[in-house]
Each structure stands twice: as structure tokens, then as C-alpha cells.
């Protein structure tokens, strides 16, 4: 297996970023980590994961779709789509890597979202296996192995080395771009590191969270559950959970009048918002209870129903640590199961 010593990682980043844009999770001034465009001297964060997920790269929070101008009674429409440049995201965790699979199911199935596809085509995802999972991690619940992340290329850290394995052709291109820096390494060292992580994984407090009671066929079982009332009671109706979630994929389309024309753009929406899916006749989900239920039913029931049992959650744990009132999918799952 190809590897590089940790102190040479800078050189690798330099070589990659010379060819295309490279983003790595780096520490921010406030102590949190965020994917940041690589600049010489930038260090990988020691935090497990970023506040905002890696979905931003393929599905940004706001995105212009089209522009048009009104001239008298004529409308002039401008297609503003541009081919995106190649880029690499380094250090994506297994959970976020799986989130792309989920987003792909939404955006790459017919009709294909060409904006999303454009970015997907040009982005190389380099994942980084976890070695210090946190108490909020429960990706295993969704069948994700954080020691064997997906993506175009996987990277492991063991002792003072990073090990590389290409999964796709794009991944191979990534490895090739830094080939001169890499050396052949001892896989045994890596195996023992992975084994150590696996031991920790078993001890995770949420290791026993299971999807066995959820899935596409559970609509009637849970929809009218009396648990929703107490669960949603303290929900503030903010969008924190949605906006830090790697799999939430809803957006709203709006027009902005710049004074010199209209920009039509889309931006993330949250099912927790009172004006989510508001239509001419009004809003189909009028109470916070219904909106709260929508979010979790979507992830645990509706999504698997439409996607061959795939759940709409990857267990990254972001909503567990970021919800202002500490309500989250794990608490919901446990409450619903507790009959």
C-alpha cells in the first residue's frame, strides 16, 4: 500500500493543489473545523469532523440557476451555467462519503439535476478513515464502516503515516498527481491501527442504536404515534439540524430582483421552517409537530420506502451536538421504539 509520512503531507497537498483546487478540513479561529481551500502551511484539523458537512461542495447553500431581464414586454433569459473546475476534497469522513450516495439517489436519478451532476463530475472525494470516533457517532447503525470509508480514494492514518488506496479512476488520478511523494508501506501497521479503532467502535454509547424497527413499511406504525407531541414540544423550529445534516437535500427556489434583472436562485430549505413547501393554498404542515415529524419520518420511513431501504441518515452525529435544545434523531428513534 502506498503511504506518506505525516510530516510530508504538506508537500502532498502542495502538489495536488498546484493542479486543481484542494479543500481540507482545517481549524477555524473559533476552534471548530471547516473545509477550507488549501493554502501553504495549512494543517489538517485534529477535530473528528467539520460543523458543516461536505455536501456543500456538490449542493451549495445558495446557487444561481438562471437570470432574466424584462425589457418592456420582452423577457430575455440568460443561462448562467458554467462548467465547474476540477477539485479535490480531502479528509471526508465515512459518514459524509455515504451521504453523497444518498444525495446521488435524489439528484442523479431522472430527472438529473445538472447543477449537482456538474459538480459531482468534477469533484474527487478523498476520504479519511476515523481513528478517534466520538460519543455522538452512530454511522454503524446505517451499515457504514468508519474504518473503511467510501469515496474516490481512501486514506488511513496509522502512527506517523497516511496510507492511500484508490477506489475509482478519479481516485487513481489523485494518487498519481502525488505519486513521486508516495512510497510503498507496511500494511500490517495499518491493520493494527484499524483493529484498535474497531475496539473503540464497539464501546461507543450509541453502538446499539438499530434501524431494525424502521423502514419503508413503518408508516402506519409511527405516523400517529403519541410520542411526536412530547418530542416536538421543545423544538424551536430552527434549521440547525437540517443545515448541518449531510443528507438533507431540500431546497427552495426564489427570484431576486437586482434592479437590473432577476436572478433565480435556489437555497437550502428546512422542513422545520413554518414556510416549508408553502403553496398557493397555504402550508400543508401547519404545526411544528407535523414539521418535526416530517423530518424524522422522511429519514427513517419515506426515504427508505422510495430508495430500496436506504435510510436518509448517515449517523454523523452533527445534529446531536448542534441542536440548540439537544433533540435529535437518536432520541426520536429510541422514543418511537419505546412503546
Amino acid at each position, binding site marked *: 500500500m502506498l503511504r506518506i509520512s505525516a510530516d510530508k503531507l504538506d508537500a502532498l497537498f502542495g502538489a495536488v493543489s498546484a493542479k486543481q483546487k484542494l479543500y481540507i478540513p482545517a481549524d477555524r479561529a473559533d476552534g471548530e473545523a471547516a473545509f477550507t481551500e488549501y493554502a501553504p502551511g495549512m494543517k489538517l484539523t485534529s477535530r473528528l469532523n467539520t460543523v458543516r458537512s461536505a455536501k456543500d461542495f456538490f449542493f451549495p447553500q445558495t446557487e444561481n440557476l438562471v437570470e432574466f431581464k*424584462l425589457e*418592456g414586454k420582452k423577457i430575455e433569459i440568460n443561462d448562467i451555467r458554467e462548467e465547474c473546475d476540477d477539485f479535490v476534497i480531502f479528509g471526508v469522513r465515512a459518514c459524509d462519503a455515504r451521504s453523497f450516495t444518498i444525495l446521488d439517489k435524489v439528484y442523479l436519478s431522472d430527472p438529473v439535476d445538472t447543477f449537482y451532476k456538474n459538480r459531482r463530475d468534477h469533484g474527487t472525494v478523498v476520504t479519511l478513515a476515523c481513528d478517534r470516533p466520538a460519543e455522538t457517532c452512530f454511522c454503524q447503525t446505517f451499515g457504514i464502516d468508519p474504518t473503511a470509508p467510501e469515496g474516490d480514494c481512501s486514506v488511513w492514518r496509522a502512527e506517523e503515516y497516511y496510507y492511500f488506496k484508490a477506489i475509482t479512476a478519479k481516485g487513481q488520478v489523485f494518487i498519481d498527481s502525488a505519486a513521486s511523494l508516495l512510497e510503498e508501506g507496511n500494511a500490517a501497521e495499518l491493520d493494527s491501527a484499524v483493529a484498535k479503532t474497531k475496539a473503540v467502535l464497539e464501546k461507543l454509547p450509541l453502538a446499539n442504536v438499530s434501524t431494525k424497527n424502521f423502514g419503508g413499511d413503518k408508516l402506519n406504525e409511527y405516523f400517529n404515534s403519541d410520542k411526536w407531541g412530547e418530542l416536538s414540544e421543545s423544538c424551536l423550529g430552527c434549521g440547525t439540524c437540517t443545515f448541518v445534516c449531510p443528507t438533507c437535500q431540500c431546497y427552495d427556489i426564489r427570484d431576486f*430582483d437586482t*434592479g*437590473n434583472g432577476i436572478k433565480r436562485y435556489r437555497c437550502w430549505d428546512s422542513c422545520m421552517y413554518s414556510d416549508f413547501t408553502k403553496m398557493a393554498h397555504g*402550508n400543508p404542515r*401547519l*404545526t411544528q409537530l407535523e414539521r418535526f415529524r416530517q423530518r424524522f419520518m422522511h429519514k427513517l420511513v419515506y426515504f427508505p420506502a422510495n430508495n430500496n431501504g436506504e435510510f436518509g441518515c448517515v449517523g454523523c452525529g452533527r445534529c446531536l451536538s448542534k441542536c440548540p435544545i439537544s433533540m435529535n434523531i437518536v432520541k426520536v428513534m429510541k422514543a418511537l421504539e419505546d412503546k
Partner: protein
Amino acid sequence: MQRIGVFVCHCGTNIAATVDVKTVAETLGHEPGVVISQDYQYMCSESGQNLVKNAIKEHNLTGVVICSCSPRMHENTFRKAAAAAGLNPYLVEIANIREQCSWIHKDIATATEKAIILGRAAVAKVHLNAPLTAGESPVVKRALVIGGGIAGIQTALDIAEAGFDVDIVEKNPTIGGKMAQIDKTFPTLDCAACILTPKMVEASQNEHITIHSFSEVAEVKGFVGNFQVKIKKKARFVDETKCTGCGLCTEKCPMKKVPNEFNMGLDNRTAIYIPFAQAVPKVATIDPNYCMMLKNGKCGVCSKVCSVGAIDYKQQDRFIEEKYGAIVVATGFNPIKLDKYDEFAYNQCPDVVTSLELERLMNAAGPNGGTLLRPSDKTHPHTIVFVQCVGSRCDDSKGKPYCSKICCMYTAKHAMLIREKYPDTEVYVFYIDVRTPGKNFDEFYRRAVEQYNVHYIKGMVGKVTPKSDGKIDVQASDLLANEQLHINADMVVLAAAIEPDKTARPLATMLTTQMDTNDFFTEAHPKLRPVESATAGIFLSGACQGPKDIPETVAQASAAAAKAIGLLCKNSITCNPCVAHSDELMCNGCSSCEKVCPYGAITYIDKEFRMPDRTTKVRRVASVNPAVCQGCGACTVACPSGAMDLNGFSNSQIMAEVDAICK
């Protein structure tokens, strides 16, 4: 879809010379929603208005933009024209391309560009204009006159003459005001009491007039046509309805050492008193600061001597509430306090007096029965010095910046009267300017000089020094002779500046009327609306608006009455439809708007709302009384949820204007 017509006025060459009106009309014609865009020589002319009217009918317009002079000039003209053509008048907007464009800019290219932008903003606004209907509110056929001096009396008499009920609120126990204290009037020298007291009697006997003496306005609510006023009737401890004004109580009252304010404190009265013989109402009043019975419960003489049992020591302040259609302010004036003018020794020497004190000293009903004697030793003064402009025409720090207007004439009157009655008395008048603009005024002054040999000296008195021999040294300059004089005087009379009554300021706050920095009420327009305040339904009478002599005061009083009658004649008045309104669905009921409303137009109601889940919820929401709201918009900004908005100047309209300007 909107159908907007744009009409660009040339205003002769006023606009057309610096703004290319054709280009403006042409360009605005391309704005969204504009279906017709025309220019014309004079849009406000009959034919210009017809152009607009025809276009409204022909193109079935939903909005009109006039690019012309300031809306302050012709907004109403065009609104009326639109209404005549069947378009709601509030669907008309004016773009001010004259005062705010053609007249201030010289370069045709940039001025034209600006005119287009202003026009575009008006078009953007008119897109969002909503048809508004002005409501009507009824007019209460009753007027309130605040102040019972000659101004108030005259106004009340005139209004009553027209057949409307009038209430006079006077803070003193009698009406009459300052004029009742004056001895003779210039320039005719007839006796003030002889012309005033018949009017006082007339007022008291007029069936349309109610006099609330010894009363004050405590609270004013409401708006033009419908003011609700709370009047405080101060306890006078005498039952007005019983007292006959016989005066026996005032004779018997043992407390005889009360400074008599009617005589400017130059003599004393009793604790129970009638201010003067011709007082109206002629009713006794007990002064609680001096009455032994009220102070420590020992006395009760007046109660014993009163044959009708009018004395009531337990009387309390009473409040009455009344509704009025119009309010006339006639709060009058007072001479200023002279404490800070040490150089005139007013506080050191009793023989230095103010002109109003001199009036009482010379009055037959005054402390000396009409014989002019020095207050200090009751001797006849042989040399009297008059000092003009004491506290008038000063720097703000030194006194009043304005001319008190009446002093030149009353001093000439005093000088003349003294010389007439006591030819052995020398009279000196120190003046800066003698101002006599009035009918027969200068002739009057010349008589004082030529016929009565009053010594008019151009110059100011610098210092007044009481001497040990009881004489007064007056040091002054004679500017024309270029010398400094010392006059050995017996009396010095100071023409103190006059100022508005102290009660005027709080009253102005209650009435939400404006005052200038000197506390004179501000008229709606200094030339064209001199007797109206800027607040609808509040009129100004007499010296509360500025210094005035008696003829002017009476003239203004009648003018104010005429304005009030004009209002009271109407059965209802049209309200301003550009008022605030609250979107109850969004209102939080937080009371922010209520707190900033200067008119108390906002109240709260508990309203039942149907909730999404079909339950109902009662919520407190704001409700605006459109008849009271004047449309300032303070509430719209205080409201955090944006529930409050203002008709005619809505959030979206103003933002549309901003957007159009910044395009």
C-alpha cells in the same frame, strides 16, 4: 395588470428649460405597467387636467404619475382631477421634477437623468398604491376657549353669536385677565374697565357661554371635531351656585394680610376674597394658603356671616369632562420676572416698579385710590424715569430676543397721564427706539413729547442706585448729546418684557401643538394661517401667539372665532386616509406601537383567531382608530413584526421607491 399613465409637465420653461421633458416622457413610457406617457405645457391648467382625465377614461388607467412641481403645490389639484375622472385620488403620485430637479440643476443631461429616476420611483410606488377612502367623523358643536382674558372673552362672544355653545376655562377666580388690571388704554385714553366689564357681563349672561372660572384643563384627548377634555374645577371652598357676591365675608375675614395679586402685591386682601368689584363670576374664593379655618380649623367667621350658606370648607377639586369640536387657546401673557436685572435695583427699592404695577398705582381702584404715590413712603414723586426694553430685544442669555411690542405705547400713555395729572412731575423716558406702528400711534407719541413735554432721551439706563435720602440715582447715557447723565429720580418704572403664561407649555403638550423657543404658540402659517395652529381644530387667540396690544388681540380673537365657527358649521370632517393599520394576523400585541403613538390612536383588543388545527386562540392585537391617527408612522418602525403599516406610505411602497432610485 397595472395600467399607469405618466404625465410630464413643462411648467412653461420652468421644467422644460433644464429637463428634456420629451425624453423623460419617452423613457418612462417603457417602464413596466406604463400604458401612456405624455408631456404638456402646463399640466395644472384646465386643459392639462383634461388631458389627464381623458387618459384615465380612455386607457382605463389604474394609476397616474404626474412629473411636475412639488406635491405640496398641486397634489390636491391632480387628485381632484383623477377623482373627477373616476379614479381613486390616492392612485395619483407626483414626481417632483421642478423644485427638486429643474430648478436646482443646470446641466440638461444630468437633470434629465435625475428627472427620469424620480419619475421611475413614482411609477414604482404607484404600482403599489391602493385606493383609499377618506372616512368622515362628526363634529361636536361646541367650542372650548382656554383663557378668559379679553382674547378669550371676545372669541367666546363671537362664537356664541353664531349660535354655538362655548365654554371658557379661566384659571383665576374671575375672567378679565390683564386688561382688567389696566387703568387706561392707548391711544384713546379711555378707561379699560369701562370697555371690558360690559363684555365680561355679556359673556356671563350669554346663554351659549359657560364660564368655568378657577379651573384648568387637565387632559385633552381626541382630535379635530371631537376633543374630549377633562377640566379641573379647583376647590374655591365656596358654592358658586349659592354665593351672591355680597362681599360680607370679605369684610369680616380676620386674615387681612394676604398680598393682593390683582394689585400686583402693592396692597393686601383677605383670605376669602373677590378679586375686584366687577369680577365675573362675582363669587368669593377662599385662599387655602392663608385661611385659618382650612389651615388649622380655627376661625369659620365667613361661614357664620354668610346668609346663604355658600361656604363649604370641605370642597374638593372636581373634574368635569366635556366634548368639543374646536379649541381656542387664549392663554395670554405675563410680565417677566426681573430678578436677574440687578442693575435696575427692582428687588432692592420699592420705588422701582414695573409698568403693570404703575397701572395699579394710578388706578382709581388701586391701592392708593388713584393718587400716584411712591410705594415706599407714600409721597408724591416729582421725577419719574421710565426705562424701555427691560428684558426685551436681548441675547437669549440676557432675556427675551423679541420686541414686546406694547411697551412704547403704554409708556407714552403713562408719561402723558402723569404729566396731565401732575404737571409738576418731570418725566424722562429712556428709549432705544420708539416703535409706534399703529393707527394714531405715532401721533399719540408725538403728543407726549410736544404737548406734554415728556423728556424722551435716546439711550439706555445703565445703573439704578437707591440712595439713603430715599431718592434714586439713575445713571444713563444720552447718546445724542454724547454724555452720561445722572438723574435724581423719585421713581423708576421698568417696561418689563412680556412672556407667554407658564401654563401654556404643558397645555401645548396636551394639545400636541407646536411652540417656538419662547413658548409662544406657533401658527400654522405665519402669513396665511395666523390664527390656526398646525394641529387641526386648535386655534390661537391673543398674546399666546405673540405680543399684541388690545386692538390686535381683539382682532385676532374674532379671527380665531371665525375659524372655529367655520369648523363648527360642518356636520362632519373628512379624515386623512393615510393612516396606520395593523395586520392582526402578525400583531404580537406587544404595545410598542401604543407607546410611541402621539395621539393615543392605538388600543388593544382581544381577538379570537382560528388556529391551523381548528382550535381557536384569543390573542391581544393592536387596533388603530383611523379617525384619531394622523399618519406619522412612528408605530410602523416601533413594530418589530412589521404588522403595522401606513396607508399611502407603506413599507413596500417606500422600498419600491428606494429600489427604483438605486437601480
